[in-house]
């Protein structure tokens, strides 16, 4: 009777999934009531939303704590490890598709919607009847559409903060890889240094991004309301920033787990999952840098 003959691991009952469903519902319920309420009485929605978010955070904390305990108790065999890996990879794939929708919107707006509105291709009549004075263009030239929504604006140049942010993220991908190799050769000190550096680089990226947003709003008049240019710009970089935030938090958690000696050179799925996630965030950024900032 051994592992080889196939003793499977089936986890024990847990109330976390049910709790998770409840707090997710609370969050969404609160958010939707906040948005759909009259501006004068949003307090109900906001309160429920806050409770929901706190609940979600508590749920993550509790659920992951119990998973980590089980992992440390050695409950997870190779098969479970493989399931976790597959789970993480397919999750990242789903995230890629999510970003795909927004990149698709960007390409479509730029390649089709705006040119058609300005009279290209089969958009001649639309242009003549609806927007005869609109000449199209992207960025500051006409990226906020024929109605000039949001007023004049300027775009963020690629070669300032965005370039710096590219270098920051690329470096952080290198440091996390060095940390991974260090983990595999069981140099815990080096892991802590390089993983710590990765966390700092992530935080630095977020700082620069926040700075860029402030500049955009205050000095460039580039806002979420700046027509389809502003919409795609802020939604793409915003969702990316959200993912960097999440990734940085996950890296920080992993740093503490390394500190506590949770990982061995053979067993460190938690570390690898976060590293994959971090690389994914990095690749999305390269897409953004290319298509949102440079081109």
């Amino acid at each position: 009777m051994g592992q080889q003959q196939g003793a499977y691991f089936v986890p024990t009952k847990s109330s976390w999934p049910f709790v998770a469903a409840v707090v997710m519902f609370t969050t969404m319920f609160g958010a939707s009531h906040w948005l759909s309420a009259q501006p004068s009485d949003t307090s109900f929605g906001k309160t429920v939303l806050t409770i929901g978010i706190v609940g979600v955070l508590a749920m993550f904390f509790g659920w992951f704590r119990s998973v980590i305990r089980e992992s440390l108790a050695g409950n997870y065999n190779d098969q479970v490890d493989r399931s976790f890996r597959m789970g993480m990879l397919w999750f990242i794939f789903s995230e890629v598709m999510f970003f795909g929708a927004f990149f698709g919107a960007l390409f479509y707006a730029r390649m089709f919607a705006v040119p058609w509105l300005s009279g290209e291709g089969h958009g001649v009549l639309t242009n003549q009847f609806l927007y005869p004075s609109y000449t199209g263009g992207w960025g500051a030239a006409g990226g906020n559409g024929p109605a000039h929504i949001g007023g004049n604006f300027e775009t963020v140049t690629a070669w300032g903060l965005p370039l710096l942010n590219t270098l920051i993220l690329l470096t952080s991908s290198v440091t996390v890889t060095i940390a991974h190799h260090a983990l595999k050769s069981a140099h815990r000190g080096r892991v802590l240094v390089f993983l710590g550096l990765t966390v700092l680089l992530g935080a630095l990226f977020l700082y620069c991004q926040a700075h860029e947003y402030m500049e955009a709003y205050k000095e460039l008049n580039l806002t979420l309301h700046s027509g389809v240019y502003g919409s795609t710009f802020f939604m793409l970089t915003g969702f990316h920033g959200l993912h960097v935030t999440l990734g940085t938090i996950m890296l920080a958690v992993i740093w503490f787990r390394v500190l506590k000696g949770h990982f061995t050179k053979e067993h460190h799925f938690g570390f690898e999952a976060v590293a994959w996630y971090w690389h994914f965030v990095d690749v999305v950024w390269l897409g953004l840098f290319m298509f949102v900032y440079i081109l």
Partner: protein
Amino acid sequence: MAHAATHDHHDHHGAPSNFFVRWCMSTNHKDIGTLYLVFALVMFFIGGSFAMVIRAELFKPGLQLVQPYFFNQMTTMHALVMIFGAVMPAFVGLGNWMIPLMIGAPDMALPRMNNLSFWIMPFAFALLLSTLFSAGGAPAGGWTMYPPLALQGGSVAQMVFAIHLMGISSIMGAINIIATILNMRAPGMDLLKMPVFVWSWLITAFLLIAVMPVLAGAVTMLLTDKYFGTSFFNAAGGGDPVLYQHIFWFFGHPEVYIMILPAFGIISEIIPTFARKPIFGYKAMVFAIASIAFLSFIVWAHHMFAVGLPLGAEVFFMYATMLIAVPTGVKVFNWVSTMWGGSMTFETPMLFAIAFVILFTIGGFSGLMLALAPADFQYHDTYFVVAHFHYVLVTGAVFSIIAATYYWLPKWTGRMYSEFWGKMHFWNSVIWVNVLFFPQHFLGLAGMPRRIPDYNVAFANFNMISSIGGFLFGASQLIFVGVLIHAVWGSKKKATDRVWEGAKGLEWTVPSPAPFHTFEVPPVINDEELAHGHVDH
């Protein structure tokens, strides 16, 4: 020793007795499968009651019962509830119950996530259905949620967040199914020995992970356009409402295959059993499913022929769409060939499966007609489309779910259902569903638009026939509930382990009812005992 360390002995032998612990904290694929199936059945009746309102209103021309705005809420909610609440969860429930049994796994790969996937669903639908009682009313812009119309009604935020929740649930469910199939198969259960149902779910799960996030993106843009001042779908700001349609249908067309591929899998299990022959062309069946899934990503704009696409796009999407008929034809051909020369018997699951083959094919043919771009200018947004998708979804997806329920019910409950009442259910369903939907083809060809509470008197007769069919089809489903209740609690007739004389595959080697835990030690795979006989690689 390792055995003891990796098992939890508390729930080793049977289901926990505490109700809350058993159902809310479950990590058992059978219990979670049951939850999904019961949930789907409840949603089926809620969505069905909306359909009854629609058909009652359309019984006669003129406004009869409800206000137009409420009518629009009914069409919208009917579709959302049926698609996301009834059909999809029913397939997930069947997958949960059967995939581990079919591949010799002890459970799903990620049992707790499995439980989360389920429990999100009732909450998501509570959020969506609650809008019916809100001041602004439920979403009324159609299940496709096209802007700007969909943004003008109430409850946009509730709708968007409910869809986010359903999406999260579907993605986690799909990840779980993929991990289970790729990682939990018993030794010797090679990929090309898996039952076709398992294959169909593997590919469906891939589709789900690929397109549910795209839907999430689309509705997120709706949300920000409505509440945060973005201009994705606003031409004045350089956006385009047609962009929404592209993103939505990039999700939407694979979505319709998400609702039919598992049905293909089910039918490919049932027909061999009752024809007492292995499935004809096992590998061709698998490849057909895979190629349908691939093609489903490049045909989306056939839903948009009338929107003003460039000519090149019309032509491309027309031909790509028609290409799907090839692998679909392969499947229909193989089901028929499986029956050819078999020694067939016609128990209820087989009756539903045969009806599926015939009626789904009718839906496929009307799809082919719709795929002709020039002709679609006439049919688009008419009752012809409504007839098309109800043939593929009701007599296709829903019939397959009913067939699967009759087929596997004895394995789940350990008792036989009443064959007499099963057949009553079948004949009533199959007759009334055609009375309900067949006339809608004529209505559409004559030009009756869909999603309208009133119509020209010229359409009166066919609409009345259709409504009568609708009421009786709805009533026939009460027989189903009766059969289920009887089979679960009343029936005295015990099921054997094999249940059906011609049944093959691992799921029939475990006792009926299937014990709480199965295959804790992987089974030995005997090729001759697999549903599709011996496959050469």
